[in-house]
């Protein structure tokens, strides 16, 4: 059996990749993808602990989380589509009307 620490390590790596992408990327699509990565890292944790404790509640929670992530992605992409129509770009550098 694979020890839980490896799951957690993979999860942490994926989360960090997502976090790094969130902070550095300019494109809206990539940022959404990074958010997905971070969510999935969290899902991985949930499933890993669920399996570790032999408790299905964690896996149920992960399913909810995936459903929510799908909704989030749908809304996020819809916003980006609207932005693209408005501004001809989805680079977040140019979408900064709330700046100083």
């Amino acid at each position, binding site marked *: 059996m694979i020890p839980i620490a490896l799951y957690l390590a993979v999860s942490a790596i994926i989360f960090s990749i997502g976090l790094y992408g969130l*902070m550095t990327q300019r494109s809206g699509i990539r*940022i959404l993808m990074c958010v997905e990565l971070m969510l999935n890292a969290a899902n991985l944790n949930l499933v890993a602990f669920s399996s570790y404790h032999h408790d299905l509640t964690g896996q149920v929670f992960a399913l909810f989380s995936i459903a929510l992530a799908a909704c989030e992605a749908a809304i996020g992409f819809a916003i980006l589509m609207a932005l693209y129509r408005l501004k001809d770009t989805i680079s977040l550098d140019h979408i*900064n009307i*709330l700046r100083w």
Partner: protein
Amino acid sequence: MAVGDLAFLIPVLPALAFVLTFFFGKKLPTGGAIIPIAAIATSFVISLLITLNLLANPEEVVSQSYSWFAMLNIGILVDPLAAVMLTMVTFVSLLIHIYSTGYMSHDKAPSRYFAETALFTASMLGLILSDNILQLFVCWELVGVCSYLLIGFWFEKPSAATAAKKAFLTTRIGDVMFLTGIIVLFSDLFKIFNGNVPDGVYILRFDEIFAHIPDLAAMNANILGMEVSHITLITLLFFGGAVGKSGQFPLHVWLPDAMEGPTTVSALIHAATMVTAGVYLVARTFPMFIAAPDSLMVVAYVGAFTALFAGTMGIVMNDLKRVLAYSTISQLGYMMLGLGVGAAVGSEAVGIALFHLINHAFFKALLFLCAGSVIHAVGTHDMRQLGGVAKVMPVTAVTMIVASLALTGIGIPGTSIGTSGFFSKDAIIESAYLMGETTGSWIPYILAIAAALLTSIYIFRLVFMTFYGKPRTDYGGHESPASMTIPLSILALLALVFGGLTSKIFNTFVSETFVNNFVNMNIHELATLGGYHLAEHAGEEPMLVLWLPLIMALAGLVITFLIYGLRIVNMDSLVSRNNPIYKLLYNRYYQNAIFTNFISVKVIYEGFAFAGRAVDRGFDWTVKWFSDLAIESGESLRQFQTGAVQNYATAVITGVSLLVILIKVVMEVLQ
């Protein structure tokens, strides 16, 4: 009931007339002139009766005091000095009011004029009647205000408004000195009483002040390294007030400009009455001056210098009234000199100066009224446009010539024949000679003699240029109405004979003031306090001294006759802007340039403007610094709001991470 009990009515009646004329004058014919005329006539009768009573019974001095508050009082004092002044002021004021009904008949606002002159007369009479120095100061300021109002009577004329302001501000310099003197005097007297002034003792009453002269003389102040007794200090400050009011050098600059007012105002205020208030002040406080010989010397020198200085400017002026204004300054200088010679002749000086004051009031009011008559008929002040006025205005011309003779002092020395100016002015010049003889200061005498020559030149130049020869322009005048010529004739009569009739009794009468009545003091003892002795009257001056003033007067007449009458001597080269001396005199020694344009406008006005700007800038800078601080810090702080989501995310993550670390650390520590 003694006539002295009515003395309080003398200033109160004109004050009442002021109120009535001010409110109801517009509805009455001739601007309600009848009200002040009636009031002042009554005051004149009361004054005359009091004076006659005093002449008969010199000990019946009117003195009434009422407590005002604390140790101050209000009261009236009619001693010989005040009595002659009261009679003169009410009489001249009465004649000028009558004359004004004719002179102001074409004016827009005669009721305002008569109200203001009535107020002036009331204040002037109040000033003379005061029995304490504070009340005198209050009235002193009141006459100053009236002078301001009346100089600026035609205030829609910018020059008149400016002249009024100038007069008010210039005399203010003197008034501040006067007030300082009163304050010093009050604090000294308070110290002398050790702060315990008994009930019923009013420390600013003149008799109370005079009683403490020895104590004041004992107090010393150190000013600029010089030991000065307080009595010298106080008297000099009082004299400073007199310099402002009586137009002595260097504060005389307002008086010629004051001629912007109606000519009757010039006659009443700036010739006969108000400007003599300074002389009256010095005469009133004369015992203090006697104890301060240095102050008396200053009075004598300033007076003599002013007499000559104003005379030099009088000979080049082309404006009828300005010549007379400089003449007034010059004659006031003579009066001050007359008081200043008290250092040699004692209390007689008051008699001499007052005698000249009264005579001067008559003939100078007459000169001004004659000038007013000419101006009224002809409509110009400029002598260069006149000439030959005697043909159309014979009464005015004759009275003017009489006044000129009185001013120059034509008479035969050693007899009682002469115009009134002859008796008083020559008395002053002879006293100045006496002072030179006893104290060795000959300068006042020399200045006074030179001024006598100038007096004669400027006044006869005026007479020749105005009344003699052919008309230089087409002015078309007519003789003035009877309301104007009758006062002229009465004044002319007085200018001619008053001096001769009263010269014997006047001096003893006024000198009584300080010697026997009311004050009861020994002038010689006071002089000893000042550290000197009065000369016993030397009696006989050399013949030349007696005749010299007359010779000077006649020389002036001859010179002007040659130049302006016969036109034998050609003055064109001298009277031109190229002649530096003429230019200097014509520009009035550049006083206007120095006092008004330089000191007032450049130094004071621009100085204040500069200081104001500097303060403004200081405030502006401070306020702006705070606003800049807020703006700039906001400007730099708002850079945090980049609008880029990544940055917000980074900040959130950083914050959360730090929070986690912090919690971890805190937990570690707590465990």
